[in-house]
């Protein structure tokens, strides 16, 4: 069993919160939508505050930035793909291309980064930092987010 297989098998056993009556948003037309990225790769701009181990906060990333640091604390996944091509985790150039082609309405001015290794109860991101990050994107007029896990 390789490292990815072990991690997938382990992660499948972790506790998971249940969401009763989950929300469902009927999206606006994609060609008119403002789209943002939300990643759990703990990416942050090089001059922004790094992530601590167990960090439950988030960092906003300006859409123009490409000088991003990988601040994730897990040694259990590949860290080199994103060094070769930021878009394999954070598909910012792909979204810019889709906006230029008119497939999406616009790329959001800011995107959101969390650290994927959260406490098991995920209470803070559910009740505090997650809603705060969503509110920040709502302020920017974001209609749709694509979430990329690490």
């Amino acid at each position, binding site marked *: 069993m390789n490292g990815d297989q072990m991690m*997938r098998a382990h992660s499948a056993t972790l506790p998971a919160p249940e969401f009763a009556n989950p929300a469902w*948003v009927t999206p606006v037309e994609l060609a008119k939508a403002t789209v943002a990225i939300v990643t759990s790769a703990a990416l942050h701009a090089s001059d922004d505050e790094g992530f601590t181990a167990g960090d439950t906060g988030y960092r906003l990333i300006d859409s123009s930035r490409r000088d*991003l640091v990988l601040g994730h604390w897990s040694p259990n*996944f590949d860290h*080199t793909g994103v*060094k070769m*091509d930021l878009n394999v985790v954070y598909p910012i150039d792909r979204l810019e291309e889709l906006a230029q082609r008119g497939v999406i309405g616009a790329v959001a001015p800011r995107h959101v980064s969390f650290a994927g290794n959260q406490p098991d109860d995920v209470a803070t991101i559910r009740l505090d930092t997650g809603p705060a990050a969503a509110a920040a994107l709502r302020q920017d007029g974001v*209609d749709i987010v694509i979430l990329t896990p690490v």
Partner: protein
Amino acid sequence: MSVLAHVFEAAGIATIVLSSIREMAVKVAPPRALHCEFPLGRPLGRPLDPEFQHDVLARAFALLNETSGPVLVDHPEVIEADDQPVSCSLPPRFDPSLPPSVDEARGLRKAYDRALAKRGVTSVGRVMSADEVPNALGMLHAIANGQDWTTAGLPGGNTIAVCHDIRTYYEEAALELVDGPLPGGRAMEDWFFDRTEAGATVLAARAAIRDSGGKFPIWFYMTPGQR
């Protein structure tokens, strides 16, 4: 990610998750998920392959056409994490008075600097700069040979951060030295731990801390769990 999808959806934003752990997507049931059985750490699948990345995004955005959820669709392609060490030359022994890993890290500095110049950014720097990597390896070498890790002088006193910075320094340097195709999902990890003196030093120091009664998190997260 699936948890955050519920949070953002509740705030009025439509969400699509690129799932990497299928069982978790089933359990947490985010509104829309495209499961991508790709190497962990590469949710868009293939670096430097815009066409493939656009295919992933197109399939993800197509889920917005569904009128109710939860929706969980599998991307049709599976990409296995390459489990063979990448082909990457290492510097020859230069100063035999130094521990091998210290000598090796010094020899990789030019490649690291080229990588930094090309990318303009480095992820080395949690607790030390690239300048300090050889010395940190010297400390791990001493720990592997019996020194108490708490008095070894590790930057930040943090075994995990030190190992992240060392491995990052090596991997960023190695991306400048790789021969042949781009490294797959586990190829660089395998190279670091199976081929380099630094990887051997980290593993030996980790074992020494474990065997001397160090607390689990102090040593366990110095390397991937399966190591």
